């Protein structure tokens, strides 16, 4: 199974790379799952604990959420897995966010990271076992109390029952249970007995979010805290040469001005004053080598780099050796721009250094990175740095980065008081780690019957991994750059996937669905172009190339049937795309018309096979959210540079999707008993190729460059 080989390789290389690239960590991190001892007893308050469960003597249950809640629902789905096996009602549990600790490392990524659509996949067995372990101990404690075999006892709703009818609530069993050893092996429930998994449980964070009580990073407040606004070099990477802060300091309300390696911070009791003071700073910057960069030179250098031989990411059959023997050839190039994450909550972080400890509170996606990055940034031992994760007002990969946590800690250290660093929208837009721009050179060789015999995909792009986790990239191979191309599902005898890493000088970051969105736009647009050249229906053509792949064929068949393939209304056209990513198969159909302003998306039909669906309503929400993020970004957004400075600053020149532009979305999940696949990013990659394919069918115009609307300007 190619997919699983790929996944193994991704996982192992990411894990290796993480360990190497953060050598400071290697002594402290233990990869793997070590459930702490079942019982932890204090003098007067017995408590049954493991890494995900705390039950106190009154029966109050606290479950630990070890992934960052950024909208995707882990604050509910992680506890669902534990509560199912612990056998407690989900509505009665309290949730705590996990600290940074080795036990919470994501085995699929090698760090305590929320990303890669891995939360449920990584937790699937581990968290159910954590719940079952605690339940087994509680049942054992009841059996001992009653002097009966444990096999005669069952648990449900926080109560252990004996077949005789005797009952004891978990709370009453905690004192005894906390002295007992956790079982080495536990039995998990038969899926037919699930009461929580697969059910539409209410999200546990919804009430706090609609009452305005949920705490995001931006809402953190500490006694004596000041708000900081940080002036950073107009060109990312630039440095302060000279600063005159006299005018800023003269502004009423400005408390302090602090220089850190990334810039100059102005501190006040409110953000308005801090920002106003910051705007009064007179700073001479050395903008560094980045000041020469503009889009023309960046694009030209990318194209120049694309003639270099790439690292071979996949070679099937003869690769491209027989391309020239093909009866005909189809060639096309696709280009995608830099993108900003643009989370609605701008980058922020609160740092407090007190009693030799540094407490970092904020919207964080990578807890160990924050812990060790901050430790290095302020010269403190990592064990003295504590990470407190708030709700995230959007993540999309931006909050994996460590820049803002280190900045906050450095400012707080110099200020001697707790500091909340808050970036303006303009700071956030102009100092991001951008989704890489890309150039995809695609060639297909066809036989006389129009079948693809040779398929060549060559991607030239900056490598996020080379920046963030350099050792993961070996011999020019960045496994994340091959997402969406290496795992091509089509049966083609000869395939070559090669990637050229080209550093444009612009810093790049992981962005929801990473390279899947880049490669899927190229691959799925190109498949339609090949089908057109072969004079075949794009769906029938795909179905033919997916023979033997039942899951892929099924989602494609269902999506096109539901969308009414071949029956588009007058003035409208349908476009299709399909792929596997994150262990999930999906197909998307877009229904498009043309207006005087360009293409309009009316309806999206998506069919998803992600195996077992843990939380159906929120699985639906994630696919919808992914589709709309892909749509919002792909239609209108690009980040461009002039003299090294980002030209987009706020939502007037980097517009985000609004209600009036939102299409109808019809989503169906395939019923399955396969282990869960990922979901958080699955919706993103397919919507733009589906739209581009519909536009080509409707107008004859093939758009190969995003943002798509720029072709209709």
């Amino acid at each position, binding site marked *: 199974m190619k997919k699983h080989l790929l996944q193994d390789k991704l996982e192992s290389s990411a894990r290796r790379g993480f360990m190497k690239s953060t050598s400071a960590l290697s002594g402290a991190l233990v990869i793997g799952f070590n459930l702490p001892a079942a019982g932890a007893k204090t003098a007067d308050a017995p408590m049954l604990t493991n890494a995900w469960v705390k039950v106190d003597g009154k029966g109050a249950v606290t479950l630990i959420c070890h992934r960052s809640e*950024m909208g995707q629902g882990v604050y509910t789905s992680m506890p669902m897995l534990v509560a199912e096996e612990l056998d407690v009602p989900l509505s009665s549990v309290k949730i705590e966010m996990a600290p940074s600790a080795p036990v919470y490392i994501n085995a699929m990524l090698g760090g305590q990271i929320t990303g890669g659509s891995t939360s449920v996949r990584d937790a699937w067995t581990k968290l159910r076992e954590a719940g079952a372990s605690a339940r087994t101990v509680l049942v054992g404690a009841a059996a001992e109390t009653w002097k009966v075999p444990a096999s005669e006892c069952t648990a449900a709703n926080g109560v252990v029952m004996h077949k005789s009818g005797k009952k004891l609530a978990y709370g009453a069993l905690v004192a005894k249970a906390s002295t007992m050893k956790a079982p080495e092996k536990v039995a998990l429930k038969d899926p037919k007995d699930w009461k929580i998994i697969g059910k539409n449980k209410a999200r546990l964070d*919804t009430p706090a979010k609609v009452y305005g009580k949920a705490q995001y990073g931006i809402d953190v407040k500490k006694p004596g805290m000041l708000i900081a606004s940080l002036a950073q070099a107009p060109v990312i990477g630039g440095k302060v040469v000279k600063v005159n802060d006299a005018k800023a300091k003269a502004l009423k309300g400005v408390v302090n001005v602090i220089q850190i390696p990334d810039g100059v911070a102005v501190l006040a009791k409110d953000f308005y004053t801090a920002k106003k003071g910051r705007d009064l700073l007179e700073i001479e910057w050395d903008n560094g080598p980045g000041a020469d960069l503009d889009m023309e030179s960046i694009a030209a250098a990318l194209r120049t780099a694309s003639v270099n031989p790439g690292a071979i990411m996949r070679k099937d059959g003869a690769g491209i050796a027989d391309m020239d023997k093909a009866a005909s050839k189809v060639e096309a190039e696709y280009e995608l721009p830099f993108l900003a994450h643009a989370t609605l909550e701008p980058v922020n972080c609160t740092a407090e250094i007190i009693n030799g400890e540094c407490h970092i509170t904020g919207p964080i996606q990578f807890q160990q990175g924050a812990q060790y990055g901050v430790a290095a940034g302020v010269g403190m031992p990592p064990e003295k740095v504590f990470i407190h994760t708030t709700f995230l007002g959007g993540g999309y990969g931006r909050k994996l980065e460590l820049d803002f946590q280190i900045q906050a800690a450095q400012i707080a250290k110099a200020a001697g008081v707790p500091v909340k660093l*808050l970036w303006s929208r303009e700071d956030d837009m102009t100092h991001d780690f951008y989704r890489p721009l890309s150039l995809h050179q695609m060639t297909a060789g066809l036989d006389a019957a129009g079948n693809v015999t040779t398929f060549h995909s060559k991607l030239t792009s900056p490598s996020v991994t080379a920046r963030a986790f350099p050792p993961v990239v070996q011999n020019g191979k960045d496994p994340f750059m091959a997402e969406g191309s290496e795992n091509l599902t089509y049966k083609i005898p000869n395939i070559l996937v090669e990637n050229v890493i080209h550093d444009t000088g612009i810093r790049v970051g992981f962005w929801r669905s990473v390279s899947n969105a880049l490669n899927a736009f190229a691959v799925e647009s190109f498949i339609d172009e090949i089908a057109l050249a072969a004079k075949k229906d794009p769906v029938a053509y795909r179905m033919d190339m997916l023979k033997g792949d039942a899951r892929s064929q099924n989602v494609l068949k269902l999506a096109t049937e539901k969308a009414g393939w071949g029956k588009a209304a007058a003035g409208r056209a349908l476009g299709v795309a399909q792929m596997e990513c994150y262990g999930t198969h999906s197909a998307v159909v877009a229904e498009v018309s043309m207006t005087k302003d360009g293409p309009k998306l009316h309806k999206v039909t998506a069919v998803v096979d992600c195996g077992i669906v843990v939380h159906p309503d929120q699985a639906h929400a994630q696919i919808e959210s992914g589709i709309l993020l892909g749509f919002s970004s792909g239609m209108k957004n690009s980040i461009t540079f002039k003299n090294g400075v980002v030209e987009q600053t706020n939502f007037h020149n980097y517009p985000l999707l609004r*209600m009036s532009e939102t299409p109808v979305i019809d989503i169906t999940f395939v019923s399955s008993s396969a282990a869960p696949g990922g979901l958080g990013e699955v919706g993103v990659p397919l919507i733009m190729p589906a739209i581009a394919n519909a536009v080509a069918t409707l107008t004859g115009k093939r758009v190969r460059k995003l943002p798509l609307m720029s072709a209709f300007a």
Partner: protein
Amino acid sequence: MLKLNVNGKPANFDGDPDTPILWVLRDHLDVTSPKFGCGMALCGACTVHLDGSPIRSCSTPVSAAVGKKITTIEGLPAGVGKALQDAWIAEEVPQCGYCQTGQMMSAAALITKNAKPSEAEIVAAMDGNICRCGTYSRIQKAVVRAGKSVAGAKA
């Protein structure tokens, strides 16, 4: 010293009268339900009511609020506030949730005036509020549900 009324209670602000209402609420009065998204009245995350009308508090100076009533999600009239919150919960609207208090303040102004808005009226009232998670279809359903609840209570 500016004398303010926030959610029916008196409050004072002794600072620059040009300070946007948002920062007075968040940083001085500890009312953090209005969120900062753009600072340019482009996203609606900071929406509060001034004498019952929705405004972008990031771009409205606090001096404009003197003699008027500032209302945030905590201070909505019980009927409308509860109807909206119940509807948002019933429809499981929030994902990251960051924009939702702003969305609900725009919706509150709408259903107070018009408890049975058409789809077009909902879109018109809500189009200034960005949701980066894309919860728009659920927001629409929740507005309809909340409006029905308010209309039902009046009937």
